[in-house]
């Protein structure tokens, strides 16, 4: 049995299956898929589609957390990049719009990385600055309005489909493969884990920890930019106040559910994305069940606590002691 199932990620996969089963109970049509105008429709596709922004954010966030950092600014970066994309969309072509938005995300990431890696600030504090100021900057770009656009190219990015799947899902999948190939296809992932495990020891062992930290924040910024563009394309407009609001917390939650420790070290890209899907499946389930969406926050709080307790070394220590006691009794 253990040979068939992956040792890591078993809990996450089981959790997803349980939540899916609960969703099926509250909504009998949950697994129904139908093909219409060359695109798949159904609750499952909805879960994938709605989960895309958090999945993209968690791809960047998991690398940052692996270096023992955290990026609180991703929601604000989403707002900035969405605002840039929306305000350029009707006057420029898609390549320029994308380049400008992703470039802005890159600059935001560089700023965060510079503060953490070069100035040596605590990650929570360093990224708090952009979290507070970023939304102001986004509103500066949109001049306080909700900028709408009608460029079909950009709208396609949020609402189109490729091979029956919504474009955002394809983009997220592509980013997962790309990140995975770069990080796990080379020694990069190992070096990131080394940096998170013990930055000083890694530095002494010849790992360029500063470059590692800088590059994970840049990647996190780019992922957030992409999420921001997709969120803007989805609603055909940029709302600087609400785009990506509190999504940094969801992204961190996704990474934590994915089993990556907030203390740095080992990480898993796939499990982080799986964490994002678990969160979204929960959200969709609560919506379908007819409970008020406000219920979401309570359920999330309980899930965070449960996952934290399971991960806590003290808790597993207690479980170990209990097991040993039982063995001695028997």
């Amino acid at each position, binding site marked *: 049995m253990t040979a068939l199932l992956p040792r890591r990620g078993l809990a996450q996969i089981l959790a997803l299956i349980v939540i899916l089963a609960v969703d099926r109970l509250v909504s009998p049509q949950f697994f129904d898929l139908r093909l219409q105008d060359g695109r798949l429709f159904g609750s499952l596709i909805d879960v994938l589609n709605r989960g895309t922004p958090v999945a993209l954010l968690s791809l960047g966030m998991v690398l940052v957390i692996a270096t023992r950092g*955290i990026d609180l600014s991703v929601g604000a970066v989403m707002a900035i990049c969405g605002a840039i994309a929306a305000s350029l969309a009707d006057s420029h072509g898609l390549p320029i719009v994308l380049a400008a938005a992703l470039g802005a995300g890159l600059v935001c990431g560089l700023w965060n990385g510079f503060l953490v890696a070069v*100035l*040596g*600030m*605590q990650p*929570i*504090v*360093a990224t*708090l*600055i*952009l*979290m*507070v*100021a*970023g*939304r*102001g*900057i986004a*509103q*500066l770009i949109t001049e*306080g309005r909700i900028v709408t656009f009608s460029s079909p190219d950009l709208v396609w990015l949020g609402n189109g489909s490729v091979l029956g799947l919504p474009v955002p899902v394809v983009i997220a999948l592509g980013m997962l493969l790309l990140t995975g190939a770069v990080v796990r296809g080379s020694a990069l992932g190992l070096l990131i884990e080394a940096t998170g495990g013990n930055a000083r020891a890694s530095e002494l062992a010849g790992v360029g920890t500063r470059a590692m930290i800088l590059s994970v924040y840049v990647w996190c910024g780019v992922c957030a930019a992409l999420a921001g563009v997709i969120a803007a394309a989805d609603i055909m407009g940029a709302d*600087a106040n609400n785009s990506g609001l509190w999504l940094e*917390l969801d992204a*961190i*939650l996704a990474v*934590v559910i994915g089993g990556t420790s*907030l*203390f740095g070290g080992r990480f898993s890209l796939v499990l982080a994305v799986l964490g994002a899907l678990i969160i979204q499946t929960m959200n969709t389930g609560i919506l379908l069940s007819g409970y*008020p969406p*406000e*219920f*979401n*926050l*309570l*359920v*999330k*709080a*309980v899930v*965070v*606590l449960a996952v*934290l*307790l399971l991960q*806590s*070394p*003290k*808790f597993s220590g207690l479980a170990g002691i209990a097991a040993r006691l039982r063995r001695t009794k028997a």
Partner: protein
Amino acid sequence: MKGLPPVLITAIVLVAGFALCAMQFPNIASTRVVGNLLTDNAFLGIVATGMTFVIISGGIDLSVGSVIGFTTVFVALAIERWGVPPLVAFVAILALSAAFGAAMGAVIHVFDLPPFIVTLAGMFLARGASFLLSTESVPITAPIYSTVSDFALRMPGGGRLTAIAIIMLVIVIGGALLLHLTRFGANVYALGGSRTTASLMGVAVGKMTIKIYMLSSLLAGIAGIVFSFYTSAGYSLSAVGVELDSIAAVVIGGTLLTGGQGSVIGTFLGVLIQGLIQTYINFDGTLSSWWTKIATGVLLFAFIALQQGLVALARRPVAKRVGAAS
């Protein structure tokens, strides 16, 4: 401490900023504006006082904004719908929020978890609970509310020192005394310096952690009651993002986010600086409110960079002296 202590720099920034604003708009330099500044930021001042204790002890509390929101809804419903006398409702909510903080502190200590993520869960929990109570804004019409809102001490020049401003000032002063003059305060600094050292010196780390988060949540509860006086209503979406404002005030006030250093007075000055920026933007009229966020961000950066510089400076002379001796 070499050079200027961070609190002094905060004070200089506040005075200079106030002088600049007063030069442009002479009306700012009146007791009326100052009175309003204190009233408008009363709840922030109270919450930031609690946050100072948490941050000096090396932790962080993200749940305070949600606790304020929950408190306003709970108080409004208790008084208006359940017919509870206001004072009983206040005592009940303060006990509830203190217990909530104690629970978070206990989880942080017993399971050795990062405060950031535990209080994040607390934030979801308190906000979700307030949504469950009511998603609508509940107006409060109890007579005590109009009595408290009408009460104010006249200051020379026509300014009004309102009841909630007085509550805030009392809490700030009380907080400063507690932090700087008591054993509890000394233990808070010790925890922030190093948990291991503090524990070896005989500080009951677990009890302290629980008490510190209890204090923070209790003050958030008081801030929630003050907020309900300020708006005469309870609303589950009130005070969203206040945790960020209060962290910013603490940092601008010169408290080290790594813990071990800081002061309540600095935090109070940080709250006033944020209030001053808001007042300036109101007076100007052409600037939009989002400039507040950008200005706060810039100030945050300036103060953190300054701290980083001070820490680097503090290390350098030691290295030189060692070099000279050898």
